[in-house]
């Protein structure tokens, strides 16, 4: 089969495995279902959510259009506050910078606060290769680290696991696991495990939800306080952040925060929202002695030129995947990239190449729900259609589809021939049906494997209409 690329089979195989996993379905449904319901309540209670979305999109569009200006302003202000700003064009450059900083700090272990950018650039792997110990301090990332897996969601990395599975994992891996089967006891077990490791780390590494240009501050949001606990005690704090995370000023950041938390979890605000401006200053009681901010491009400026500028609005809330019918069925791992769901289907071709990931923009019903819930109004279906066009132009779509669509379009642009063809097709289809339904239809196995096809009427509309109206 030269027509079907191996990658396509791989996505389908992953999706099939996910569909067969009933526990996965329960896990995804619990978390995404709750998030969907809570978000709806939060959005209803918000004074004018639609206007707030429009403003958020405008803020991001402005920043993306003037990225250089705001990044330079950020660098100047962060530097003035005592931080050191580093620039990385690629994922590898970003990892090299972080590893060099860790080595310079003679770090044996780092405490990491959950960051999707870190996942995107492959930082966990790079740290392991450099022989540097890594403590994942976010509870879900801790679960992922124990299970040696990858995150399946950008907000809840361990959403694919049920609490029952997590309980079993903790019992197998924690030194002093919980005895009672309660969430509180499990959280306590994780806390026992993590606290000492966290406080003993030489370097704290975080991402940034926002970079604030006019103050040089970075902002993290968490619900567990793990960012604060892993970034303040160590001697060195390293931030890795995508360059699109920039906002002009604090009021802009606050506007985005109001949308971020509501869109992600339905909460008005996360439990912890912290702004870090430079390292410890003279007279400060605590804080790191060094703060490094690694600003990562990794394809972002190219996105701006390649018609994907709107995707740079993304604030990584996860609402698109929580509301996606496909994600809800197959979960995040089936997507095969760092970012799953609709936003992942737009980003993965940028990061991993379209050839590797052409299935992702195609495995979408184009129902538009993701765009409807996106807090920054990203036209996700339009961007996905853009990838489909590119995939078609570059000949990555299966030959069978190209031939089928080509033949159909050739006939459909010849109305008289089309009428003859559809008339014949209808008569042929009717031969295959009984009692109104067709149970198996050649060339449409994808349909009839799972559902019946209604038998068409004896004549097409056009034939009947012509007869009735005597034309």
């Amino acid at each position, binding site marked *: 089969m030269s027509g079907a690329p191996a990658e396509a089979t791989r996505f389908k195989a992953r999706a099939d495995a996910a569909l067969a996993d009933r526990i996965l379905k329960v896990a995804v449904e619990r978390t995404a279902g709750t998030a969907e319901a809570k978000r709806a309540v939060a959005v209803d209670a918000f004074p004018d959510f639609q206007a707030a979305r429009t403003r958020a999109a405008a803020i991001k569009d402005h920043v993306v259009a003037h990225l250089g200006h705001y990044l330079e302003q950020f660098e100047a202000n962060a530097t003035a506050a005592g931080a050191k700003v580093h620039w990385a064009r690629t994922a590898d450059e970003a990892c090299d910078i972080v590893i060099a900083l860790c080595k310079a700090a003679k770090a044996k272990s780092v405490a990491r606060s959950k960051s999707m950018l870190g996942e995107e650039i492959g930082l966990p792997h790079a740290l392991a290769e450099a022989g540097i110990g890594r403590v994942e301090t976010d509870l879900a990332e801790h679960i992922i680290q124990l299970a040696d897996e990858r995150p399946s969601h950008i907000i809840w990395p361990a959403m694919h696991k049920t609490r029952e599975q997590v309980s079993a994992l903790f019992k197998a891996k924690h030194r002093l696991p919980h005895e009672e089967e309660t969430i509180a006891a499990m959280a306590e077990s994780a806390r026992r495990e993590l606290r000492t490791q966290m406080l003993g780390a030489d370097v704290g590494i975080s991402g940034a939800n926002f970079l604030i240009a006019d103050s040089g501050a970075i902002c993290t949001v968490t619900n567990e306080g793990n960012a604060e606990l892993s970034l303040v005690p160590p001697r060195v704090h390293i931030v890795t952040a995508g360059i699109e995370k920039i906002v002009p000023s604090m009021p802009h950041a606050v506007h985005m925060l109001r949308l971020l938390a509501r869109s992600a979890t339905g909460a008005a605000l996360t439990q912890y929202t912290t702004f870090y401006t430079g390292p410890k200053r003279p007279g400060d009681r605590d804080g790191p002695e060094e703060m490094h901010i690694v600003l990562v491009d990794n394809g972002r400026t190219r996105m701006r030129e390649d018609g994907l500028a709107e995707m740079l609005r993304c604030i990584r809330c996860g609402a698109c995947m929580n509301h996606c019918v496909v994600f809800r069925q197959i979960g995040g791992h089936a997507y095969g990239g760092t970012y799953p769901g609709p936003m992942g289907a737009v980003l993965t071709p940028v990061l991993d190449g379209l050839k590797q990931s052409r299935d992702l923009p195609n*495995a979408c019903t184009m129902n538009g729900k993701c765009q409807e819930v996106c807090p920054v109004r990203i036209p996700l279906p339009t961007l996905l259609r853009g990838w489909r066009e590119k995939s078609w132009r570059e000949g990555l779509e299966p030959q069978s589809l190209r031939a089928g669509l080509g033949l159909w*379009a050739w006939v459909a642009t010849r109305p008289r021939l089309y009428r003859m063809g559809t008339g014949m097709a209808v008569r042929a289809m009717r031969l295959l049906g009984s009692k109104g339904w067709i149970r198996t239809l050649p060339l449409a196995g994808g349909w009839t494997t799972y559902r*019946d096809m209604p038998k068409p009427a004896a004549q097409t509309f056009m034939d009947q209409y012509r007869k009735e109206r005597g034309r």
Partner: protein
Amino acid sequence: MTQRKVALFVTCLVDMMRPRIGFAAIRALEAAGCDVVVPEGQTCCGQPALNSGDTNHAIALARQTIVALEPYEAVVVPSGSCGGTIRCHYPELFEHDPIWLPRAQAVAAKTWEIMAYLDEQCGWKPEGVQVDAKATYHDSCSGLRELGVKAQPRRLLKPIAGLELTPLAGEETCCGFGGTFCVKYPAISNAIVGEKADAIEATGADLLLAGDLGCLMNMAGKLNRQGSKVRAFHAIELIAGMGDGPAIGEEA
């Protein structure tokens, strides 16, 4: 009063699979005082090519459709997704074409989903129609999100005597059809439509109504495979007083 001259864009799926929907549309439009024409040059709006990334063929079919439809005062489509293709995506297709863009925009601006047209443009309501049944309504995605079709079908169904409309849990959630999606990724599509079928069954309704034949065939086909007794119609069939005929998958 001069009659509005309205072109019916039948859609390829209605043409081939369920002509009754086209005739129901004509009947309702005529009752609303329109002079309905079915332009000869029409076939398919090109949506399958558009959504597959095959822009050249999408453009060829869009041009053919524009030529067929532009002479009329209004274009009415018994499908939210085909209507959405003409109204929202044709202008995008010709974004960089100074000759075709104004023509695409002109046709887009006068293209309406059938129930939105009857309700908003004609201010019409069905009279003397009776259907004794409990029905539930699924909001097809393109009609809902691209064309804002939500209240119109409900307003048109309300005057039908004997019809009880019961809400469908997740009525705005995609049914998993997605055009070519359902045959490109059949297992995922099946999982989605399976949940939709369960939600429909849970309403206890006799009838499933929607505004898009693709979605209806997907849901009705799944319901039938599961042995359900729920009967599926395009809402316009009931609105036009044709709800006493065969449902989708029933012999005439």
